[in-house]
């Protein structure tokens, strides 16, 4: 065990945890004020629910010894994380539970990412059910495919097919996280259908300062996501850190430039979106390209995603907060970019097409991306329709008009009147306190 590596992995795990509240803000600021709490709750509930099932069986499905074909980990290996508190339990140079921790927050945020596609209209209970099923039959397997390396905990340990057989390079999750969530988002947007007023009415962001805070926290946390995936504090971590900065900065520039040219003005939502697009694109590729390669990947990610967010109007699916435009498109581009811009001088030591490596790596990347995309899209469609047809997934049109925060959570996000306390304009009054104490209130 190396204390420096462990310090970095534990820090990174905390950084990645923060990304989910960051995402909640990023998404929450983009919806209307009557839906911000529900939007944030879809992320926060992922922290709660996926956190629990990860401990119970998720880690074991993802990182247990392979059951065969590189398709799934053995759920009995680490059920309830058993045996992992021992000082001897290591993954590479860090305690096993540090690795468990780091991977837990990946599972959490992947589920949360999907929710952006179905803003304002998904019932909360069915969303929880969906999250549970999706994590279990989509994320945990895909995580095993992509992130579970042969030999990680001992020489005879066998992992997943994309990492070990296909040998696609997906350093921190272009496929497992972003294509996966993006494809699922598209499927759910199709299942749930358009919001009332989509394409006609103003559904502009209600609070762009939240979006900016969210983008800032996401970027911050993403250093843990990418550089933490080095699982140690070393040159690899430093390279991925710096590539993460380079690509993200360039992507923000790219998005702003496109806006300036196309729409006349560069916007703050564009800057925030460009940041996320760059982060997505560099996620799979940060270990295999140079900082200059990262600049190119990022800049083009900004352009591509800024163009892609318009697709929903063209094709008429209501991917409310552009999970497809940013995560699916950005994830595909980032995954493929490894095949194009990888350079043998980077830690992954592979040459892509433009560095004379031919198409060998490129096809591996394409197969990995395509497999995850197809698997996630199809299975999500099935889960989504099953829920919609059985218990119903979507709130009614009237409830949509009223606002999902009140309907699903009996809350409203803001009250800026100077209310109550014998002062101000009381927008309401206390009707009853928690059941057992009803008397107290009237006392």
């Amino acid at each position, binding site marked *: 065990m190396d204390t420096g590596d462990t310090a970095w992995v534990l820090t990174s795990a905390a950084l990645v945890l923060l990304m989910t509240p960051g995402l909640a803000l990023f998404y929450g600021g983009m919806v209307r004020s009557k839906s911000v709490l529900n939007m944030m709750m879809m992320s926060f509930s992922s922290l709660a629910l996926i956190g629990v099932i990860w401990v119970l069986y998720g880690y074991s499905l993802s990182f247990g010894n392979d059951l065969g074909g590189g398709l799934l980990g053995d759920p009995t290996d680490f059920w309830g994380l058993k045996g992992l508190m021992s000082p001897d339990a290591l993954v590479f140079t860090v305690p096993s539970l540090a690795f468990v921790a780091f991977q837990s927050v990946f599972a959490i945020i992947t589920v949360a990412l999907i929710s952006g596609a179905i803003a304002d209209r998904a019932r909360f209970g069915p969303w929880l059910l969906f999250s549970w099923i999706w994590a279990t039959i989509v994320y945990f397997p895909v995580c095993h495919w992509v992130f579970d390396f042969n030999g990680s905990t001992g020489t005879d340990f066998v992992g997943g097919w994309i990492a070990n057989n296909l040998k696609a390079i997906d350093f921190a999750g272009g496929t497992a996280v972003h294509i996966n969530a993006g494809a699922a988002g598209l499927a759910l947007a199709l299942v749930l259908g358009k919001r009332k007023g989509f394409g006609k009415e103003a559904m502009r962001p209600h609070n762009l300062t939240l979006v900016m805070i969210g983008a800032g926290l996401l970027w911050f946390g993403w250093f843990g996501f990418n550089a933490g995936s080095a699982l140690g504090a070393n040159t690899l971590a430093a390279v991925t850190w710096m590539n993460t900065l380079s690509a993200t900065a360039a992507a923000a520039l790219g998005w702003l430039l496109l806006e300036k040219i196309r729409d006349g003005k560069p916007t703050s939502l564009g800057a925030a979106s460009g940041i996320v697009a760059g982060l997505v694109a560099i996620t799979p590729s940060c270990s295999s390209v140079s900082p200059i390669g990262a600049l190119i990947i990022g800049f083009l990610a900004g352009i591509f995603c800024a163009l892609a967010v318009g697709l929903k109007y063209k094709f008429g699916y209501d991917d409310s907060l552009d999970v497809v435009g940013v995560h699916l498109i950005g994830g595909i581009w980032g995954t493929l970019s490894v095949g194009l811009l990888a350079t043998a001088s980077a830690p992954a030591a592979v040459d892509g097409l433009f560095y004379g490596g031919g198409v060998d790596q490129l096809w591996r990347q394409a197969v990995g991306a395509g497999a995850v995309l197809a698997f996630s899209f199809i299975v999500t469609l099935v889960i989504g329709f099953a829920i919609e047809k059985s218990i119903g997934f979507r709130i009614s049109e009237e409830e949509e008009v009223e606002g999902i925060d009140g309907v699903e959570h009996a809350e*409203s996000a803001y009250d800026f009147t100077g209310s109550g306390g014998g002062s101000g304009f009381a*927008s*309401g*009054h206390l009707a009853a*306190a928690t059941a057992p104490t009803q008397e107290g209130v009237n006392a």
Partner: protein
Amino acid sequence: MKLVTAVIKPHKWEDVREALETFGVTGMTVSEVSGYGRQKGHTEVYRGAEYDIALVPKIRIEIVVDNDDADDVVGIIVKTAQTGRIGDGKVWVSPVETVVRVRTGDRDEAAL
């Protein structure tokens, strides 16, 4: 001159605006208000404490019109804003003695 004041459901605002525009109303003044009436508010819950929110969000529209147009404008608003469910709102008409356009100082009919 008359002042038509209408209190309507917020999601009807866009329809009302369009209908009035079609009729030829070129200007109005709009504000967000809270309504109290037969339509009851809703309940919110914070840490187990229930709050009755008595007031319902409404949109208030003020339009100064020619005497002749007042009835038509009222009719259009009532027709367009009607959903048939409690809380659709009220429209009332009151007399206006004079109206001035600030930009030009024009008065009455010319000021609209």
